[in-house]
């Protein structure tokens, strides 16, 4: 194997090991936290039948709840290692099936929102570099508004106007692409606001760098200057920010899916919390942690591809 090949393999292995540790820590903390909460698992599983004496023993037996907590924990980890996420206490289905049916709409929503936010922020940043200060202040105020407005309120407003009054888009569900528009827009608002402010600042700051003067002295067009020289610089800086936005995205998804009555992980997580549905919650946590690991790997790789200087720093 070549030197670079070996170095690459080492990086990949190190990342994988790191990812496993992150996932393990996430589910462990959640496991401990859920077990520490008041209320017993049997009550959750039995629901209204909680007072049937015979059933209680049956449940304990079936779920192995009479064993020590440590054994249950190791059992759970062993299940995970086999790819077995367990069965939902409340919905009486395999967690894997449940998550599998809910993950699609959420990924659609998140990707659509990120695309809308990203593209809008880029366009705004590139098109407004040389606007007079007054209009930039106005723009900044609009962005501030987008960041500050609570998601549930913005979502309700969009529903009220674009759906109930004018009937442009459906109010609920996840059946058609048009049903994705309003939720994605709502979720994109705060993310787009933050990204937009950041990008504009970054592009404006870069404008005074010597390499920009060199490029302009070659007689290139302003559009080329922005897209070829300024945007990649701002991209490196904003990539990390966008990666960290994942948290905002997930938090937002809970609200948006509830407001628009969409199926999805956010709503599943909310119901699971309310019902203390431990296997489902653990699975959601696992998926969110995995998403973080994946996104940060993608972000880091992309940053090095754009800015080769980063590679030297890391060595």
């Amino acid at each position, binding site marked *: 194997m070549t030197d670079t090949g070996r170095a690459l393999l080492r990086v990949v292995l190190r990342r994988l090991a790191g990812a496993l540790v992150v996932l393990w820590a996430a589910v462990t903390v959640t496991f401990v936290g859920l077990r520490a909460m008041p209320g017993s698992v049997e009550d959750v599983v039995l629901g209204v039948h909680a007072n049937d004496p015979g059933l209680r023993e049956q449940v304990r037996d079936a779920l192995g709840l009479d064993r020590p907590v440590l054994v249950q924990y190791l059992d759970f980890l062993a299940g995970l290692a086999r790819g077995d996420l367990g069965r939902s206490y409340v919905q009486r289905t395999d967690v894997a099936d449940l998550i599998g049916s809910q993950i699609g709409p959420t990924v659609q929503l998140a990707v659509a929102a990120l695309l809308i936010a990203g593209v809008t922020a880029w366009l705004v940043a590139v098109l407004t570099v040389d606007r007079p200060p007054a209009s930039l202040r106005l723009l900044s105020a609009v962005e501030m508004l987008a960041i500050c407005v609570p998601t549930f309120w913005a979502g309700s407003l969009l529903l009220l106007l674009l759906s109930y009054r004018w009937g442009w888009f459906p109010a609920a569900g996840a059946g058609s692409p048009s049903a994705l528009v309003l939720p994605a827009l709502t979720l994109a608002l705060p993310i787009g606001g933050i990204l937009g402010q950041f990008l504009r600042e970054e592009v404006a700051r870069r404008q005074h*760098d010597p390499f920009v003067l060199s490029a302009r*002295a*070659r*007689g290139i*067009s302003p559009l080329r200057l922005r897209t070829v*020289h300024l945007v990649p610089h701002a991209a490196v800086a904003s990539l990390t920010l966008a990666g960290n936005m994942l948290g905002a995205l997930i938090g937002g998804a809970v609200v948006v899916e509830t407001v628009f009555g969409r199926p999805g992980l956010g709503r599943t997580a909310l119901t699971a919390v309310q019902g203390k549905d431990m296997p489902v919650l653990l699975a959601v946590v696992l998926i969110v942690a995995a998403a973080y690991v994946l996104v940060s790997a993608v972000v880091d790789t992309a940053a090095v591809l754009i*800015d080769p200087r980063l590679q030297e720093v890391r060595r």
Partner: protein
Amino acid sequence: MTTVLSVRDLALTYAGPTGPVPAVRGVSFDLEPGRCLALVGESGSGKSTIARALLGLAGPAATVTATELTVDGEDGLTLTEAGWRRVRGDRVGLVLQDALQSLDPLRSVSREVAEALTAHRRMPRPERRRRVLELLRAAGIPDPEQRARQHAHELSGGLRQRALIATAIAAGPRVLIADEPTTALDVTVQRQVLDLLGGLTADGMALVLVSHDLAVVAEIADHVLVLRDGEVVEEGPPRRILHDPRHPYTRELVAALPVDAPPAREAEDRPEPPVLAAERVSVTYHRPGGGRLTALDDVSVRVERGRTLGVVGESGSGKSTLLRVLLGLQEPDGGEVTLDGAAWSGVPERARRPRRPRMQIVAQDPLAAFDPRWTVHRLLGEALTGERAALRGPARREVLVDALTDVGLGPDLLDRYPIALSGGQRQRVAIARALVAEPEVLVCDEAVSALDVLVQDQVLALLARLQRERGLALVFVSHDLAVIRQISDEVVVLREGRVVERGPVQTVWEHPAHPYSRRLLADLPTALSGTAG
């Protein structure tokens, strides 16, 4: 011959918060193909502003007026922004200082050159590639196929400056504007870049050379304009300006050229124990892919109270490693360092820390060495040692004002932030900060390299005075031989981690023994090389 650049009564004002601020007034010149015109002056003299105005890049806040501004046949006074874009690169090229920042750090050399090639005309890919390699080769870059794929940060200072020049001449302009093209380069590289620029003019390029360094300019310019506060105070051929300066300001500039400073101090033979000594120090680095790099190989240096040791070498010679070892920031792999006769290397950091105030450093770029959010008061206060560190209120302020007075600064600077200081003021504050710790040894790492020549002269004089008054031992590291000669008693010349020459500065200058020192001295601009040239 016809002129390619005609400027009459050029004036430039910036819109300021309290009305227009004049930056340039009444500047006129003509330039013919194959000739080199130099604009010389300190920062703030308007020289760079003029250079940018010749490309229509003075900025939106600037108002340019003139009775004539003709650039290769185009009337610059009536050109629109789109018109200027046709002129830029195609008729006039621009080379800036420091290619590390003047080439887009995210783009490879070939893409930067290709952009300059295709900004004005379409070119099929194979031809573009061929032209890029041709241009890099013409700029004196060996192995252009490999270099073209690299980014600015992967090239040496000299190579990347050549690459920058290649982008500026790619579209075949008839005028090249070079703004401080050799500043911050080692003397050998500076020589090579000047030769490259000289070669371009020999091929018929008209060159406008902007520099603060009269000695560099004198090398290749045919005509020199000396600027001060936006006005031409004197002009003429470089030889005349150097040997018969008429305007008081020009005289000051010429006098500040290090060679005309008082001759190196006489060597006194006082056998005194050294304050700081490194004995047979060596340092080896392990390369990431295996293999070793010997950064220092059996290097011994010593400096006594009140004396200056000059350390000369190009980048990569081991200067920085030697500095780190002397400062006790890095343990040598072999040999030892002593401070005041006591072990300085090979002891735990805890033992070293109380003695650290005895040795202080002045870095090249004080702005980078200061916390930008701290005032001068806080910056200096932090460096106070002993019981003075415990002083509060007016008593503390008084000590700090004294420290500023010592370096020739007024008390009003105490409440300023570093960004609000001039380059010279910053370096003085850096020196004051080093001195409030009451050191015995002051290590100066390229401490005057970023300063204008007049300011450089003042700071060197300040260091000499402080050394006399306090008996400071100075270790002065620089790539600038003229500066080293002016301030040093003894010099060591480093190359590839070894001392290739050492001795009293006068001796080394007049009879350099090692071929490398001879070459270094020969690379000096002739106005500076004095007895050696």
